[in-house]
């Protein structure tokens, strides 16, 4: 068998005794291919991430990890329910956030798990003004012989995740999970996965923190207050939703925005009008009473 050119060139680097031993060469080649770093196909770059300007939300694929995935013509309600809810929420986010953000659909981008969002990746995303990344997954298990699809939705709030990894801030990853029996009706799961308000809150918080980083104090305060207000509203509507840690962090950040604005001699804006009382809790008007 004639060796391909690449292997012929490499052969020059290998001792002659080994080069002449074909089984070794074949084994080495196979071994190289097996253990070479895999292409980052699951975290492939998203179209538009480099070219679109402004704050961005990345919507990744919803994947499934099931042993016996339904065939193409068999209904797969778990996947369809999740897709319906996610896409409806994304549309609501787009409609109600106006031009504040760009939503990029990232086909083929499939985070394996949360650990891929390490410091290196987070810094890359942060540099490209990505504020939120969303993906979903359906995994299968069996309960008392009945097939159950567990649906997961994950949000990574990039600026908060960055703070978590660099200075021990609150967690920047949020999870929704729900076991869906294929026989049950869609209503409950569709209600649970109605995350439109949470998405708006996360986006506003991300935009707020990013604005703060570049001393855009007015925009930072406005968006942090929107985020705080939306989260506080959701705690009254959803008893199981507990973003206390995140709300406290946002309050703290809002106070820091005011402190920095007041101390910045180049800042001449309206934050200077706030009284000390208001400066201690600037987003108080945004909270549900």
């Amino acid at each position, binding site marked *: 068998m004639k060796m391909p050119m690449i292997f012929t060139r490499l052969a020059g680097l290998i001792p002659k005794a080994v080069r002449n031993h074909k089984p070794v060469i074949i084994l080495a080649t196979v071994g190289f291919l097996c253990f070479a770093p895999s292409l980052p196909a699951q975290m492939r770059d998203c179209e538009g991430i480099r070219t679109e300007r402004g704050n961005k939300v990345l919507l990744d694929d*919803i994947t499934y990890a099931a042993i016996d995935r339904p065939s193409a013509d068999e209904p797969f*309600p778990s996947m*369809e*329910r999740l*897709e*319906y*809810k996610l*896409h*409806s929420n994304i*549309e*609501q986010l787009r*409609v*109600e956030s*106006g031009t504040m953000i760009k939503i990029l*659909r990232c086909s083929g981008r499939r985070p394996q798990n949360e650990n891929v969002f390490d410091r290196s990746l987070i810094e890359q995303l942060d540099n490209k003004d990505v504020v939120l990344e969303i993906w979903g997954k359906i995994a299968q298990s069996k309960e008392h012989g009945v097939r159950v699809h567990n649906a997961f939705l994950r949000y990574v709030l990039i600026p908060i995740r960055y703070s978590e990894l660099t200075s021990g801030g609150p967690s920047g990853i949020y999870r929704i999970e729900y076991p869906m029996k294929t026989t049950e*009706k*869609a*209503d409950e799961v*569709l209600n649970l996965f*109605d995350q*439109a308000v949470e998405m708006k809150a996360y986006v506003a918080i991300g935009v707020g923190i990013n604005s703060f980083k570049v001393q855009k*104090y*007015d*925009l930072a*305060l*406005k968006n942090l*207050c*929107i985020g*705080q*207000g*939306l989260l506080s*509203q959701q705690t009254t509507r959803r008893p199981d939703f507990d973003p206390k840690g995140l709300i406290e962090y946002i309050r703290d950040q809002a106070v820091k925005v005011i402190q920095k604005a007041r101390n910045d001699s180049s800042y*001449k*804006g*309206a*934050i*200077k*009008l*706030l*009284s000390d009382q*208001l400066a201690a809790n*600037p*987003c*108080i*008007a*945004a*909270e*549900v*009473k």
Partner: protein
Amino acid sequence: MWWTKYKTTMKIHYSPIIRLRAVCLAALFSIYIALTLPAEAGAPNVPCKRPFIFSDAMVNAVVLPYTYAGSSGKPLSQTAKKLSLLIQVDTLFSALKYGSIGAVRLVDESGDRKCEANAVLKELQKQVKPGHGLVLLWGRIYEEKKDIYVQSYAHFLRGNVKEELELLIGNNRFIASLPTQAFAFAPRKLTVEDLNSIQSQFERSAIVHEKPDESSPGTPIPVDPDFPFSFWVVDVKDEWMRIKHMERHGPDGWIYAGPRIGGWPLSQKLPELSFVDALIGYLQARGTRDQENRKRYLQFTEWMQEALLRYQKASEGAEAPLATAIGKELNAVVRFLKPDRSIEDIIISQRLFKEAVRLIPYSADAHNLEIISRIAFAYQQITPPPPSPKIIAHDLVGAVALDPQNLQILSNLANFYSLLISKPLQEADPNEVLERPELELRLKAVKDIIVTQASSQAP
């Protein structure tokens, strides 16, 4: 263009009143165009990539095709297509009572997903005349066995007009904008049985009668994606229109175009259709400006308020806070702008603005609207408790915190300080009064910031 030819025909053959109502019925023409013309007929469809509105109509309501919500591009079933059509027809028939209306249903004829709301809105905004209104409605559908899940979205606007409330108190202007003109409605669920029942009810209500009398014999207007229906308006009598079917086979006669108690049947299951009715009423009302139109303004606002009440009742337990808040604000605004508005109108408006703030407390604009209505209320010197200038000023500064770049709020703050200087509130509790030196200091600080903000925001 085919529609230009239609308008020319209208000018030759019909009186202005009939022309006005005929614009409405041109909507039905658009349904015909959208649904039925085979390619060999040679006439154009109304595709999303070439959307149009009836430019003479005071308000246009445009419904995009409701699409499957998932990412797999699955086409809608016949049931879902029927729902999409019923939504459009319900919108049209609810709007008939307002008179100068255009209603258009767009289709995604090429299947290349050109019916994105953003793209369509961008095109339509170029066509809307100054002061004329546009309501765009679209949505997502998901079907599972016999259940249909729907979520709708709306965007409304007037050509070259900002949606704001302006009040003159003394010599001071106070201005506040609506928080948004685009929002989502709460998701809804219908069953196939619901849909069939609604279609039957509609067919019983949308009847073409032999005479302008509901007791006279009639034929229902069919609701079928495969059945074209298009009409010419040939006569108008009170709240009845006489129509002539454009096809060889179809009902001719009189249809009732007035308001219906309880609205049309689909709006019970999809309350957002009542909201769209209210949006049309709001835009029509804002379009009538002078005293000659006083009667029409009052009629439009009455219909708008009835529609909002129907929305509220049908939405109980499943509200969308942002949409509901906007509804309350629109209601409050039209009351404030009523010719010969009463003290009761101001009190009700203020209550509605407060309720809106409770729903969307994070919105600086919602706070701004509520506060300027409170200032107007304070200067009416109506009833106890006495207004507190300190609290009003404090709340305005609180609104500034929610949006420090908002020039309207800053101007309102400055104007409030000016007003207190020139015309102190007589009934105020002395402990709640701001003294003149303090007012002048604060006024100067705010004015300096306004100058800086205005120059940094200048194009």
